[in-house]
């Protein structure tokens, strides 16, 4: 008993000492923290921490409102406050998939600590609280059976209801999702791990499963573990399964390689022959260059594959899109997006259009380094485009002189086939390398990099011919058969070098003998 009393007394002493010492320090931190916050954070999060900074309606999801102390990425139980380390981690590394950047390169560690103290001061919930992290244990060894079990639990726990059968964020509930602030929120596309708000490692995914993403519809499954609906190991299997759905962040290469196939070209978007051709990742970002700008694009990138057989070029473009637009079940969603986003460049459409994909190359071979304007071309240097829409499922071929400035040709020489499945569009184009009409369309030369750029829009997301996602100029390269010199030149080089070497040795030896 007495020992416990001593312990309590010591604790009380430590408490008062720490208050006395830390009190003024804390105050100082807050002053500096406020200065850092006002300068670097308030533009989005607002001076009062209400998440209502100047940029609020220029991003989706909107900036966090700190007043409620509700945080997505934590190590604590759902409904709980984050630890300082949790907040610090987000400040340091940012939130992938959102507009929140990491601040390590800009703010010193002291500044980041101070700003965390200031952020906490926006809510009284933090007063006197010391949140404790959950114990997470370790991941079981990854096995094939484990993945099967993970997939089983993915269905059992009804993850697919929001995230979809293949994980592309296209579940039946996806169009209806809102966050605690009643703003539309997208179900994560699990095939895009690099956009996971809390990170893409198995450990990080498991933590999100255990803690939930508070403020969003993503629940915590700790209850399910405690209620013995499934074991911790089984939940780890779900994390491993989710992790397996996404490749590493794909490297961006400037050139899309189109290998030359000896046999037939793939017959359609679902032909298994495409699997043998490595895809190129083309990142897309919001069209924010001309009016009307679009700050919340749905499509964040395209997987592009290409092949040719010396006669015809085939291009397969695949991308995640949760809806086959227009789709009545997404009406609620498009209304929500229109309400959430700025109307600085005019009202966001609330009638759904089709999904779109535009592929463009220069209409005429670039003179020197000059190309058409990357946004659809310009009157002086037009582009040649394939403009695909989902409804009607058709491709128009023609001449572009800018975004939204397009004249379709009377005849279409490009063939296409489009397939929508599990939240993914796969659209294949095919056209003869030599154009039918050289004035209306360019040739696709082999052995030469041809500039190519893309545009994509989700008609159920308020997107159209200008509000959408664009790429910079990339290039497509149609492989040539390997010329014989590639094999002849090295053999010649070996022979010449060996001969010269032998000559040097023989001469040196002859000279040595003669002296």
């Amino acid at each position, binding site marked *: 008993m007495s020992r416990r009393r001593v312990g309590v007394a010591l604790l009380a002493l430590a408490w008062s000492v720490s208050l006395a010492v830390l009190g003024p320090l804390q105050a100082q931190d807050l002053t500096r923290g406020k200065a850092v916050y006002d*300068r*670097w954070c308030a*533009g*989005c999060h607002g001076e009062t921490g209400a998440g209502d900074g*100047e*940029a609020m309606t*220029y991003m989706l999801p909107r900036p966090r409102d700190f007043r409620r102390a509700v945080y997505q990425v934590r190590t604590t139980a759902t409904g709980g406050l984050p630890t300082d380390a949790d907040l610090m981690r987000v400040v340091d590394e940012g939130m992938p998939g*959102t*507009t929140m*950047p990491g*601040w390590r*390169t*800009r703010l010193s560690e002291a500044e980041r600590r101070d700003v965390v103290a200031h952020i906490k001061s926006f809510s009284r919930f933090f007063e006197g609280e010391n949140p404790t992290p959950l114990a997470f244990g370790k991941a079981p060894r990854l096995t094939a059976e484990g993945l099967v079990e993970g997939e089983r639990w993915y269905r059992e726990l009804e993850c697919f209801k929001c995230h979809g059968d293949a994980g592309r964020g296209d579940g039946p509930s996806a169009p209806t999702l809102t966050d605690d602030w009643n703003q539309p929120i997208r179900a994560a596309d699990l095939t895009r791990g690099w956009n996971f708000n809390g990170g893409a490692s198995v450990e990080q995914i498991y933590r999100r499963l255990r803690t939930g993403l508070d403020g969003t519809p993503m629940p915590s499954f700790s209850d399910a573990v405690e209620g013995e609906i499934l074991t911790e190991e089984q939940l780890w299997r779900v994390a491993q399964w989710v992790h397996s759905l996404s490749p590493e962040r794909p490297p961006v290469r*400037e*050139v899309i*390689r189109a290998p030359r196939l000896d046999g037939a070209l793939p017959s359609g978007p679902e032909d298994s022959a495409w699997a043998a051709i490595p895809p190129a990742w083309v*990142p*897309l*970002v*919001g069209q*924010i*260059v*001309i*009016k009307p700008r679009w*700050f919340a694009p749905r499509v964040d990138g395209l997987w592009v594959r290409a092949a040719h057989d010396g006669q015809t070029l085939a291009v397969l473009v695949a991308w995640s899109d949760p809806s086959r637009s227009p789709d009545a079940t997404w009406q609620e969603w498009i209304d929500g997006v229109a309400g959430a986003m*700025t109307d600085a460049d005019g009202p966001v459409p609330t009638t759904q259009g089709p999904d779109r994909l535009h592929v463009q190359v220069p209409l005429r071979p*670039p003179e020197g*380094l*000059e*190309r*058409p*304007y*990357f946004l659809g071309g*310009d009157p002086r*240097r037009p582009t040649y485009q394939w403009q695909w829409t989902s409804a009607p499922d058709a491709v128009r071929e023609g001449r572009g002189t800018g975004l939204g400035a397009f004249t379709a040709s009377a005849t279409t020489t490009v063939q296409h086939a489009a397939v929508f499945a599990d939240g993914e569009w796969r659209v294949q184009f095919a056209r003869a390398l030599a154009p039918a009409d050289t004035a209306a369309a360019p040739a696709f030369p082999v*052995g030469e*990099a041809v*500039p190519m750029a893309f545009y994509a829009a989700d008609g159920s997301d308020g997107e159209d011919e200008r509000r959408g996602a664009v790429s*910079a*100029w990339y*290039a497509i*390269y149609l*492989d*040539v058969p390997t010329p014989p*010199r*590639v094999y002849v*030149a*090295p053999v010649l*080089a*070996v*022979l010449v*070098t*060996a001969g010269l*070497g*032998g000559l*040097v*040795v023989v001469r*040196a*030896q002859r000279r*040595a003998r003669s002296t």
Partner: protein
Amino acid sequence: MSRVRDALRHPFWQAVLLLVAAWLVFRFGIQYVPPLFGVRSAPVPQSVMLQYMLTALVGVLLYVSDNEARWRRFKEPITATLVDPGKRRLRVALLVLVPALVGFMTYRQARPSVSAPIQLRSIHPAPPGEITFRGQSMRLTGLENPLRSGGALEEHVREGRRVYYQNCLPCHGDRLDGEGHFGHGFSPTPLSFTDPGTIAQLTESFVFWRIAKGGPGLPREGAPWNSAMPAWEDFLTADEVWAVVVFLYEQSGWQPRRWEAGGEGEGGHE
């Protein structure tokens, strides 16, 4: 130990050692020098490496052939390798390995490699003396930011912050480093204002011109077809542009370049 010391005194091994040291410095060392002065850096490219190494080789050869005795000693191990009956194995090995290496390098050269068309652009193109902004003619030469001589600077910074966060942030980023959430999608990537080579080198009128006219208003050498910078005169008033210019300098901590007293200074370009 003494063998090592002997070898270190031998001009042949000195030459070898010098060349290895030079290679290490070029390959791994040089890239760490610019950051000491706050400048971004990159590894030395392959073609330049070759030039550097040739220069080093010439220097080393000059050194070993500088006096007769050293030159003779330098040649000794080479002649020995070519002639000595005891070094037959080494000789044969070299006669096989060197041609094989040359063959391999030739193959790497001849192998078809694919590269995107080169993209060049001038960093700070020469500004025009005069522009029209929304139909109004403006003389850029000698032009100072009118907001600096009227109203409270604090208000202008506040207004500039609003303009920046609603328009510039997606590309140029919260940190002003050109790494906004859309920055990676464009090529060339958006300018970093924290880089000492950008706004720190420019007058405010130059920055005004670049904002007002954007990519489409670049001269041809600026590769206007690639730049994603919008022509902001379509979106912003002159006061809004001047305010965001004030904000850029406040937030980055740089000072704008000033016009020379005569008014006809160098302008913004380098």
